[in-house]
């Protein structure tokens, strides 16, 4: 196969960080090439260099063996390179149609709406998708939003498509559909760069895999040369995967009781409806369910972010549904939110400051009336070491960290107050194997110390591995509990679609 794109000795630094040190690899025409690397290895940065968002400090890019330089996304796009970004490039307030129209090339000043509309609808249908063109984007699920991004690229006839962790936001069914679409594109001779942390997927679809580590391309492997273990070993290198053991059986003491909880969302629809749940001390309770069935509302109701319409939440016997006691108890309920950047961190504050957001009043971090810079810095250093956070230069805004490292910052902060209950929403979404394993270890160790966890996840592997019990949620109601030691995947799958076990 001829080479479509060659990257040679790419280097990119940001103030105080070397994001890419020395990256070289090639993309052949018509292949699916996977980029694998830990969080912070530089994958997103590299892709941003390819799409013209970042200007590399050094290195060459050859397209069809001709040297090219992308000064802007516009130039990269015009050469047929398109990307589905991790944070979608959509305007939530605009309709699906407008979001696609704006990405089209060579459209006359006054667009022939009907004609274009038909063309777009045709493309959507060709790939077996369904999208309401007139609906505003904010109303759509994250999965559907990702399809819009893909349609944009398909309409532009891109030769090289880059997908940055596309499956992190998809249900297994949607992911399967995506792979079908990718296979079809490959047949048409398009090249695809695929980024994912899910080994099973990588094995399934990659023709070649390039491994990136600490800003360097380590090696490229042809299909047949790699298996899951080899890839994991190469990616992690000398870093050890943390080891942990499931904690001992939990006690029978109830720490949290939810009775007939109902929560309505902004649009007045019921997110939770007559939902009941019991959590025991030291237990890891997995909540299985397809995203959008009330998981977020559950987490928000427990952590005081959503208003409860009816029902009760009892913590160690005390009613905390609405009472003031609740706000004081909130200190005992830690939360790992789904949307990390929006509610998990204060993006423009530094790492040090983000780590004490919940405990800045504590005497430890104060010096009389003032903050104690030294104590705050020291605390940060401890956490960076303990949680293996790859931090940038001290004092830079935390939003500059890669997604996985932001997640570690949140976890480090939430656990620092030794909570009674941890409510974790998709805590390992988008994390590399090492980091995901680390999160599991932290939760399991916490359970050993008596912390109870509500682990909300779509990933059945994760739930099986770490939960003591699994509760299944469907349309805002509890379908039932199962024991991961005995229940089959099929059984849980059926319950996730609402079937109550006999």
């Amino acid at each position: 196969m001829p080479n479509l794109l060659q990257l040679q000795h790419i280097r990119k630094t940001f103030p105080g960080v070397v994001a890419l040190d020395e990256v070289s690899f090639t993309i052949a025409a018509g292949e699916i090439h996977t980029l694998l690397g830990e969080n912070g290895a530089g994958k997103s940065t590299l892709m941003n260099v390819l799409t013209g968002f970042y200007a590399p400090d050094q290195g060459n890019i050859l397209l069809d063996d001709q040297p090219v330089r992308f000064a802007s996304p516009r130039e990269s796009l015009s050469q047929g390179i398109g990307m589905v970004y991790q944070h979608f490039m959509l305007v939530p307030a605009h309709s699906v149609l407008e979001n696609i129209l704006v990405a089209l090339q060579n459209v006359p000043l006054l667009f022939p709406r009907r004609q274009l509309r038909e063309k777009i609808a045709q493309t959507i249908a060709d790939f077996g998708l369904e999208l309401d063109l007139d609906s505003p984007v904010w109303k759509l699920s994250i999965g559907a939003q990702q399809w819009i991004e893909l349609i944009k690229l398909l309409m532009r006839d891109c030769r090289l498509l880059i997908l940055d962790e596309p499956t992190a936001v998809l249900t297994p069914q949607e992911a399967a559909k995506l792979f079908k679409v990718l296979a079809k594109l490959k047949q048409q001779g398009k090249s695809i760069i695929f980024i994912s942390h899910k080994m099973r997927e990588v094995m399934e679809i990659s023709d070649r895999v390039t491994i990136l580590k600490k800003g360097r391309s380590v090696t490229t492997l042809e299909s047949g040369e790699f298996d899951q273990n080899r890839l994991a070993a190469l990616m992690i290198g000398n870093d050890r995967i943390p080891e942990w053991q499931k904690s001992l059986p939990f006690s029978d003491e109830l720490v949290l009781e939810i009775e007939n909880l109902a929560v309505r969302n902004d649009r007045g629809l019921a997110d939770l409806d007559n939902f009941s749940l019991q959590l025991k001390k030291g237990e890891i309770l997995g909540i299985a369910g397809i995203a959008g069935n009330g998981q977020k509302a559950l987490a928000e109701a427990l952590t005081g972010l959503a208003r409860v319409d009816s029902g009760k939440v009892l913590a160690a016997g005390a009613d905390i549904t609405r009472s003031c006691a609740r706000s004081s108890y909130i200190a005992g309920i830690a939360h790992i939110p789904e949307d990390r950047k929006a509610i998990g961190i204060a993006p423009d504050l530094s790492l040090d400051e983000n780590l004490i957001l919940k405990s800045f009043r504590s005497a430890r971090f104060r010096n009389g009336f003032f903050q104690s810079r030294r104590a705050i810095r020291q605390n940060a250093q401890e956490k960076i070491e303990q949680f293996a956070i790859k931090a940038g230069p001290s004092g830079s805004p935390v939003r500059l960290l890669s997604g996985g490292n932001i997640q570690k910052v949140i976890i480090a902060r939430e656990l620092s107050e030794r909570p009674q209950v941890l409510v974790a929403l998709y805590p390992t979404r988008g994390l590399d194997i090492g980091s995901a394993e680390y999160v599991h270890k932290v939760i399991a160790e916490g359970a050993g110390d008596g912390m109870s966890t509500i682990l909300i996840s779509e990933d059945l592997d994760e739930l099986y591995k770490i939960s003591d019990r699994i509760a299944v949620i469907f349309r805002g109601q509890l379908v039932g509990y199962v024991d991961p030691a005995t229940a089959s995947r099929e059984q849980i799958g059926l319950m996730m679609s609402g079937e109550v076990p006999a």
Partner: protein
Amino acid sequence: MLEILLDATVRAGTPILFATLGAIINERAGIINLGIEGLMLIGALSGFAATFASGSLFLGVVAAFVAAFIAGSIHALICVQLRGNQIVSGLALTLFGVGITALFGRGLVGQTIEGFERHAVPLLAQLPLVGKAFFNQDWLIYFSFLLVIAIWFFLYHSRWGLNLRTVGENPTAADACGIPVNLYRFLAVACGSGFVGIGGAYLSLVYTPMWIENMTAGRGWIAVALVIFASWSSFRALGGAYLFGGVTAMQLRFQAMGTTVSVHILQMLPYIFTIVVLVISTLRLQKGASQQPGNLGLPYDREDRK
């Protein structure tokens, strides 16, 4: 009586209408412009000076547009290219406008010119009640009608308009689609400022055809508030500007009738009205009816982490 009041409403509302439309174009690109008051003054003085020197009202309008376009370009340079603070830059522009017009306008105080004449639109001017007020007016007022429609059409039916809205909502997304974000922002700020300048010129060429120091008397600030009231829509801007014009016309009427209420209180009415409008429209914003461009007030840096 009602006809006269309506007529006065349209005339008092037109300068604010131009200014509000200009501000909307700025904000649709994501740039806040608090320099509206200064830009109106710059437009008013340049328009008056050009007409006074050349005798041509048309040249006056062009001069107002060009002068405000140039002054707006300073704001654009600071906010778009240099990614400076938009609030500070806008306030500085207003102070600059007030100062420079006072300085260069000294020689023109007391001079007069022949303002725009009325031209009746055939048929339409015969409509009962509204005919005279809306269709027996001067060219600038007709131009403002046209501009309201043109802006709406541009924003919602042209490719450039869609690009502009995308730039204001999410510049990163616009960039990823290949839209030159900075160019759009720059032109939107500069052209928007130009229209604000025409609003100022309406004061000095038509409303009171002469130059008076600080003759805008806070109308620019009212336009800034009306942008929110209008939810960034040109048609609602028309409504908002005429509401303000109506209150102004009425208070002038009361003054003419010689009420016992203090003139100062009467003159306050349009401004009090603006505050009330702002409170109401802000309440509405909070209820989620927001049309505010998603990235309003934020500078765009391509290399910043997304």
